[in-house]
C-alpha cells in the first residue's frame, strides 16, 4: 500500500549544519498526524522535505508514492500567516482562489466553478461573510482560516499545516479540528504545533522531532520519555480531563516548550 509519506534514513539541514541526522518514518494514508518538538528540532525541515523545497543530504523522501516535487499538485500546504504579504490589494476570496495555482494553466484565472468551490470551503470555515474583505482588514485568526481554505480548495491527498491554531480562539480551533478530522477520514493531514495539549485532543498519532531523529507514536498518547528525548531534558507530564497535558517549567533548559495550563 502506498504511504502518505516515507522518510528513509534522511539527513537534511542548511549549509553545513544537519538538523535531521538519521530520520526514518512511514505514515500510512488516512488520519491526522501531529508533529511536535522544540524550536530548531527540525519540524519545519521535515515540512520542507515533504514539500520538495529542501533536498536531503542523504537518504530518500517519498510523498504519495513519488518524489516530493512530482507530488506537489496532490499536496496542500498551510504556512504560518507571516509568509503572506498582507499589504497587497487582494480580498479574502482572491487569496482562497490562489489555491488553484498549479492546477490551472498559469494564464488561466479561476472561473465560476472554482469560485463556488472556494466559497463552499469558506462557508465551512465560517469566513464566507468576509469574502470581499481586504487582507489588511482581516484578523490573524481570519487570515489563518483563509489559508486553510486556500489549501483545501485543492482537495489534496496530503495536507500539511504549520502552526494553524497559533492565532485561533477556542471556537475557531474546535471548528478547524472538526473540519480536519472529517477531511482526514480518507486523506492524510500532518499538523505541526508547539501545543502538545491541542494535538493530543485531536490527532490519531504523534511524531516527536528532536535530536536529529523522528519518533512516531501510533495514538495520541505521548510517553514522557518520548518528550524527554525530543526536548532533550526532563519533563513533567500531567494528564487530566480531555486529556490535557502540562509541561511544567524547569531550569537548565532553554527550549521553548509547548503545553497548556
Amino acid at each position, binding site marked *: 500500500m502506498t504511504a502518505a509519506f516515507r522518510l528513509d534514513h534522511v539527513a537534511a539541514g542548511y549549509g553545513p549544519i544537519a538538523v535531521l541526522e538519521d530520520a526514518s518514518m512511514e505514515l500510512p494514508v488516512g488520519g491526522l498526524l501531529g508533529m511536535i518538538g522544540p524550536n530548531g528540532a527540525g519540524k519545519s525541515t521535515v515540512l520542507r522535505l515533504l514539500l520538495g523545497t529542501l533536498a536531503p543530504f542523504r537518504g530518500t523522501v517519498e510523498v504519495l508514492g513519488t518524489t516530493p516535487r512530482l507530488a*506537489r499538485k496532490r499536496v496542500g500546504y498551510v504556512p504560518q500567516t507571516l509568509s503572506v*504579504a498582507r499589504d497587497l490589494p487582494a480580498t479574502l476570496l482572491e487569496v482562497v482562489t*490562489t489555491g488553484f495555482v498549479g492546477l490551472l494553466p*498559469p494564464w488561466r484565472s479561476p472561473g465560476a466553478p472554482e469560485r463556488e468551490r472556494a466559497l463552499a470551503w469558506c462557508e465551512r470555515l465560517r469566513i464566507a461573510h468576509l469574502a470581499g474583505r481586504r487582507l489588511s482588514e482581516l484578523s490573524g485568526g481570519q487570515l489563518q482560516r483563509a489559508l486553510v481554505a486556500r489549501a483545501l480548495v485543492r482537495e489534496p491527498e496530503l495536507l500539511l499545516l504549520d502552526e494553524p491554531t497559533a492565532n485561533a480562539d477556542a471556537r475557531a480551533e474546535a471548528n478547524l479540528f472538526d473540519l480536519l478530522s472529517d477531511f482526514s477520514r480518507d486523506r492524510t493531514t500532518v499538523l505541526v504545533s508547539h501545543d502538545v495539549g491541542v494535538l493530543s485532543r485531536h490527532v490519531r498519532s504523534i511524531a516527536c522531532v528532536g535530536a536529529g531523529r523522528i519518533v512516531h507514536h501510533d495514538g495520541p498518547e505521548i510517553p514522557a520519555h518520548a518528550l524527554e528525548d525530543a526536548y532533550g531534558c526532563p519533563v513533567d507530564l500531567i494528564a487530566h480531563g480531555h486529556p490535557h497535558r502540562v509541561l511544567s517549567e524547569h531550569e537548565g533548559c532553554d527550549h521553548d516548550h509547548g503545553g497548556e495550563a
Partner: protein
Amino acid sequence: MSLANPFLISALIAVLLTAIATGVVGTLSVANRMVSIGGGLAHAAYGGLGLAFLLGWTPLPVAILFTLFFALALAWLQERVHEPSDTLTGVLWALGMAIGILCIDLSRRYAGDLNAILFGSLLAIPREDLVVLGILDCLLVPAAALFRRSLLALALDREFAEVSGLPVRALRIGLLVAVSLSVVLLMRVVGLVLMVALLSIPGSLSLRWSRSLGRAMLLSGVLTLVFGLAGLWLSWRFDLSSGAAIIAVAGVVYLIATLRSRK
C-alpha cells in the same frame, strides 16, 4: 511653447507610453519587493551604454542585452549562493555603473550624450524611441492581463506558489526581463538615476489605494500620467529638467500620502 510644438507633442506621447509601462512594471516591482532590483538593473544598463560608447555600437541593443545578462545573472546567483538578495543587488548596482564609467574612461572621448541618458531628456525624445516604447507597452499589458492571477499568487506568498506547482522561476525571470526592458527603454524619458522613483512611487501609492492588483496597475498608470504632465508643465514653466521635475512631483505626493497614513 505652444501645444502644437512637435517637441511638446512627443514629450506628451512619451509620458503616456511611460505611464502604461510603469503602471504594469512599477506595480509588479513593488508587489514583489523588486524595487531595488529595478534600481540595480537601471544602473547595470549604464554599463551597457558605456560599453556601446567604447565600441562605437548602437547604444540601445547593447544596453538591452547587457541589462538582460545582469538580470539573468542575478536570478542565477539568488538561487545558488547564500547571500541576501539586497547585497547581490547592491553589488550589481555598483558594478554596472563602474563598468560604464571605465568604458567611458577607456574611450578617451567626451561622453555628453551619455549624461543626457543618465538624467533623461524628455523634450528631446526621438520618434524611434517612441515607437520602441509603444512596442514595449503592447507586450507588457497583454502579458500582465493574461498572467495576473499567477502574478498575484506569486506576490502574495511565493513559497505557497512554488509548492503548489506554479512555475515560480519562469515567472520571476519573466518579471526580471520586463523590468530590464522597461528600465532601458524608459531611460530616455526620466533618466537612469531617476528611474527607481517611477518604479516605486506610483506602484506603492496605487497598491495602497486599490482593491485589486489589476486596478492598482491601472491607477499606477494614471498617477504616472498625472505626475508626468505636472512635471512637464513645471519643466516648461520654470525651465527645469523634465525628469527631475516629474520625480519631484511624485516624491512630494508620496511623502504627503505616507505621512497622512502613518500608524
